């Protein structure tokens, strides 16, 4: 990555250091990013709302504070954008839907938006996403498809499609997304960047539109591990308004990134996680495993049960959330999402109880595993991003629906609420593909240390955007 804070691939660390040193003003950085969004986003459709006026005002405040000799936050002057299920003051929180556009504007920013602002970051807008987050593709029936910056005829992935695309294309050095069954990890994998899904309950969710309470996580995207850690550290802390937040005191990770992997017990997920992989996905896992000196392969065939449990919990909880909307305005939904919600509303209660029993059994299974290991390596997606509109894909010689099967490997991991860093693992010039680095609860520091090691040895590098975008 460049040391020029105005370059398309300038990271958060570079920008914040340059602004703090007075080498560049926050206003200059913001203007450069806004101009880049104007130039590039029409080809990607990552943004649904731009908050340019607000961004420039925030940048002015940073510059005025610096001129006064005041203290600047660790992300001072760093532009960021958020998935449009995050509340942004003055905007209706659309959550990828048509129906939510008629909601009153949010009266305040969501908690994590406020935290990044408190760290000095500058909000540039809201990002495209799958309708009500029930999506792995990034194809939104109302706001249009979000394109992959690396290969624009391919999916950006979802449901945090705009977040993955914006960060990959240098339109948002930091972006925020959500992940219930894979919605941070899939776009990170498809767009060739780093994404962090923290432990369930780590980051407060207040001021966001929900999808599935039992499984919703929030987290950051970035083009470097240090940027990811910087953002994650700024996001931590209690959230009394989120009943599922563990309210743990912040456990910073940025200072320990370079501790390396010596002494870490690292294994590769087998069984379920080694079937239905394309060759690029299999090769990516092998590359990461070799670079981390991974030892054993752990058979995790019961991951299929975990995936099924997460599917049923997601289907039922999200359907209950939308029941009134389904009664009054079913035709205003994307048909694919609507029909999922209809079905989810009709599931037998016994299935849900069974799903919660299975979820606990799986979490206990993984807890026993993580007494023996520190990091588990698993594929993020079955393959690189499919083409936009591709309805089916072939895995292990079997043709299957694309959309639900993109999350085969992410869904079992989030079912147990474990922290995951998704790292880019493709060879240069190939379509991006990510790999999951999973740790025990509350050990995001280990995920990030392993990710940093891969970055330092050159195995995990962010992908280069398509030449047609005029960036690289």
């Amino acid at each position, binding site marked *: 990555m460049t040391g020029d804070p105005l370059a398309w691939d300038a990271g958060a660390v570079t920008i914040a250091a340059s602004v703090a040193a007075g080498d560049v003003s926050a206003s200059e950085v913001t203007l450069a990013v806004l101009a880049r969004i104007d130039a590039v986003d029409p080809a990607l459709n990552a943004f649904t709302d731009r908050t340019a006026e607000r961004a420039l005002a925030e940048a002015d405040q940073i510059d005025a504070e610096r001129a006064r000799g005041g203290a600047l936050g660790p992300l001072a002057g760093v532009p960021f954008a958020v998935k449009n299920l995050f509340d942004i003051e003055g905007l209706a929180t659309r959550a990828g839907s048509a129906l939510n556009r008629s909601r009153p504007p949010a009266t305040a920013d969501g908690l994590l938006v406020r935290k990044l602002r408190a760290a000095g970051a500058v909000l540039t807008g809201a990002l495209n996403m799958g309708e009500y987050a029930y999506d792995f593709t990034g194809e939104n029936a109302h706001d249009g498809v979000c394109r992959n910056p690396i290969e624009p005829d391919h999916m950006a992935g979802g449901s945090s499609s705009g977040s993955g695309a914006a960060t990959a294309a240098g339109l948002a050095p930091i972006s925020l997304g959500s992940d219930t069954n894979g919605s941070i990890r899939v776009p990170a994998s498809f767009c060739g960047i780093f994404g962090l899904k923290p432990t369930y309950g780590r980051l407060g969710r207040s001021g966001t539109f929900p999808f599935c309470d*039992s499984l919703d996580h929030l987290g950051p995207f970035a083009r470097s591990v240090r940027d990811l850690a910087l953002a994650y550290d700024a996001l931590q802390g209690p959230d*009394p308004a989120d009943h599922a937040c563990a309210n743990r005191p912040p456990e910073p990770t940025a200072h320990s990134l370079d501790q390396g992997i010596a002494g870490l017990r690292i294994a590769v997920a087998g069984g379920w996680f080694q079937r239905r992989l394309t060759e690029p996905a299999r090769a990516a896992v092998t590359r990461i495993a070799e670079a981390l000196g991974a030892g054993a392969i752990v058979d995790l065939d*019961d991951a*299929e*049960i975990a995936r*099924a*449990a997460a*599917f*049923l919990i997601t*289907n039922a909880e999200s359907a209950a959330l939308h*029941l009134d909307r*389904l*009664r009054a305005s*079913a035709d205003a939904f994307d*048909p*694919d999402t*609507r*029909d*999922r919600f*209809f*079905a*989810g*509303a*009709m*599931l*037998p209660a016994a*299935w849900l*109880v*069974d*799903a*919660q*029993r*299975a*979820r*606990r*059994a799986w*979490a206990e299974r993984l807890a026993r595993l993580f007494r023996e290991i520190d990091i588990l390596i698993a594929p993020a997606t079955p393959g690189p991003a499919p083409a936009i509109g591709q309805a089916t894909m072939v895995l292990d010689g079997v043709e299957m629906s694309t959309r*639900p099967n993109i999350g085969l490997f992410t869904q079992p991991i989030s079912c147990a609420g474990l922290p995951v860093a998704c790292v880019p693992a493709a060879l240069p010039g190939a379509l991006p593909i990510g790999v999951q680095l999973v740790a025990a609860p509350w050990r995001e520091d280990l995920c990030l240390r392993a990710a940093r090691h891969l970055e330092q040895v050159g195995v995990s590098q962010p992908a280069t955007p398509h030449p047609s975008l005029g960036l690289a």
Partner: protein
Amino acid sequence: MAQDWSPDRHIDAMAPLLGLTVTEAQRPGVRRFLEVARSMAELIEGAAPPDTLDLAPVFVPISPKRPDDG
């Protein structure tokens, strides 16, 4: 699992109970997702030991005390 289950009969029974209207055009999609859900339920049936009811979520009673109360 029941061998003679019909997603259409299920929709016919459940939709009115929930106050939902599923049109003929919407029915094939809803049927498909019900069948997927059923296949998922079949996978988890019997996964937990019998006569146990250890659920993932645990309810924590909510104290009337506010955080800043003494």
